[in-house]
């Protein structure tokens, strides 16, 4: 049956009406948040204390922590270094399919390393990692576990490529947050496997630190409200309890929405730390920080969140190099303000849909060559694969 477009149209109308009302409310809340940001712009120590008190009430609190810059800081665009090495990596995967004849997954990593300030073509790298899950120690893999493998692999790849980088400073980029996600999503009874992934991930970060590289996670179109959540904490009356903390008076306002008018094109926000339950895993020079960067054009702001470790946050020269190179990268793809090297890393890593079938067939052929008969397609999938009814045409 096709979608019931008649019903959908009515629902879409109702949703649009609700959105118009909600938008007005969000704008009012944004005005409150913006005023609070201005009022408390330099009150950094007191804010840190308030966040610490709130985190004591609710250890799961996830919000921004001010560093040394005022909350309303708008850092101008620094000069780009004359020469630098820029490395970006991205990953793509074929997820395991329980209905397929073979339960396998593939993580494909792509990377690009260019010498900024030169005219030589960059080097490109691919790394494909195939696992036939029936024959692994775990016996099976979820999509979340594959994502963990991919995210960890990206960081390890940039660390490896940074080792032989020719020019300093070295800047490495990956798409998405710097923090390794997936602990809960992976659904392990214990978090032993996640811990192993995390250890390798942190080792790669440490390797980048030793190399003196500025590493970053680039979040396009961020919807986070870490800064807004911090402002909510500041609004709590004295003696509030955990329940009061869970109220969200500024719900719906995002950080990007809040800072949009504060940052001119090319400017970055203050650098913030992150208060979160997982922050304990990233301590010292690995502590997670972030800033917002307006990579848009005059009259068309576009904010990205850039996540960086502590050693980059505390090194003005590295921070400036990262800031300047990111803005330059965002100017390459014309009207699309997204780092060119990340776009290229994605292109290199991408596993196309038609390649899924080819990889599966490759595994099946090899299994048969070894005398191992692969499994069978599930009855459900076989039925789904039947050709659909087609309209007769001349």
């Amino acid at each position, binding site marked *: 049956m096709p979608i019931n477009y008649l019903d959908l149209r009515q629902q879409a109308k109702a949703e649009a009406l609700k959105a118009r009302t909600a938008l007005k409310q969000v704008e009012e809340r944004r005005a409150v948040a913006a005023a609070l940001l201005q009022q408390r712009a330099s009150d950094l120590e007191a804010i840190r204390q308030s966040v610490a008190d709130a985190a004591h009430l609710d250890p799961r609190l996830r919000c921004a922590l001010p560093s040394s810059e005022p909350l309303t800081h708008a850092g101008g665009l620094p000069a780009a270094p004359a020469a630098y090495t820029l490395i970006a990596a991205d990953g793509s995967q074929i997820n395991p399919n329980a209905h397929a004849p073979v339960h396998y997954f593939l993580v494909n990593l792509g990377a690009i390393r260019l010498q900024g300030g*030169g005219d030589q073509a960059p080097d490109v790298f691919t790394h494909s990692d195939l696992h036939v899950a029936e024959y692994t120690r775990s016996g099976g893999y979820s999509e979340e576990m594959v994502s963990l493998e991919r995210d960890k692999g990206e960081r390890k790849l940039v660390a490896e490529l940074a080792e032989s980088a020719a020019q300093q400073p070295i800047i490495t980029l990956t798409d998405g947050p710097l923090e390794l996600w997936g602990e809960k999503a992976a659904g392990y009874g214990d978090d032993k496997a996640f811990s192993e992934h995390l250890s390798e991930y942190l080792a790669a970060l440490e390797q980048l630190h030793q190399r003196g590289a500025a590493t970053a996670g680039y979040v396009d179109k961020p919807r986070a409200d870490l800064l807004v959540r911090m402002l909510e904490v500041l609004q709590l009356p004295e003696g509030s309890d955990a329940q009061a903390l869970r109220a969200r008076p500024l719900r719906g306002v995002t950080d990007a929405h809040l800072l949009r008018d504060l940052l001119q094109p090319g400017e970055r926000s203050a650098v913030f730390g992150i208060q979160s339950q997982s922050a304990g895993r990233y301590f010292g020079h690995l502590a997670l920080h972030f800033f917002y960067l307006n990579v848009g054009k005059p009259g068309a702001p576009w904010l990205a969140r850039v996540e960086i470790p502590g050693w980059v946050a505390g090194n003005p020269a590295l921070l400036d190099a990262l800031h300047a190179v990111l803005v330059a990268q965002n100017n390459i793809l*014309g009207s699309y303000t997204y780092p060119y090297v990340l776009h*290229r890393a994605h292109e290199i890593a991408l596993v196309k849909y038609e390649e899924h079938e080819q990889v599966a067939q490759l595994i099946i052929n090899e299994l048969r060559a070894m005398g191992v008969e692969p499994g069978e397609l599930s009855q459900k999938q076989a039925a789904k694969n039947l050709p659909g009814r087609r309209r007769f045409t001349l």
Partner: protein
Amino acid sequence: MNDAQAYKVGYLLRSAITGFVAGTRVSEQDAPQFGALVKAPLNPGMWIYGLIYAMNIDDDGTVRQIATSDNVDEVVVADNRKNRTVPLEISVLTVGHRREEAVSHLLPPRAPLSLDIVWQCQPAEVAEFTERLGYFRHILRNTANPELPAAELLAAHIHQAAADHPDGTWRQRASQEIITLLRDDYETLMQVMSALADAS
């Protein structure tokens, strides 16, 4: 063309009896020329000959976006030319074949296969294949095809091939053959003659 060496034009992408298309990396685009005689293998001892009549470099969304930037960084240009898989497509019009030592200007019995290597012909081979001029009919058969600029192709080809004929009369014979073949098509004849005059 006298100093041309055996040059790999590219790998065959698709083919038909009447023509084929080879793909090569964009960075190698300076080698093959419009109007050049090339060949692709068919069987051991058998080659298909053709003339390059078109070269295409397709764009994509990324290139279009980059092109709208104010200043395109040299590194980005180099990356797109060297690393991004945007092949130069070279279209070839089949004009004959060779079985062992026998050159024929008839169409070949079969089409060449994908990923066969397409080679540019060396001067002696060009002179041998073009000694007789029967293959002109394959070019002039396509005068109504806007994708195949017959007059320009003939002019470019004759200009190149004439250099491979040491006796110096070949160009005149070629012109006379064209006049004979196009005696009933004054408009096309004038186009070809005009292009030939420009190429001399």
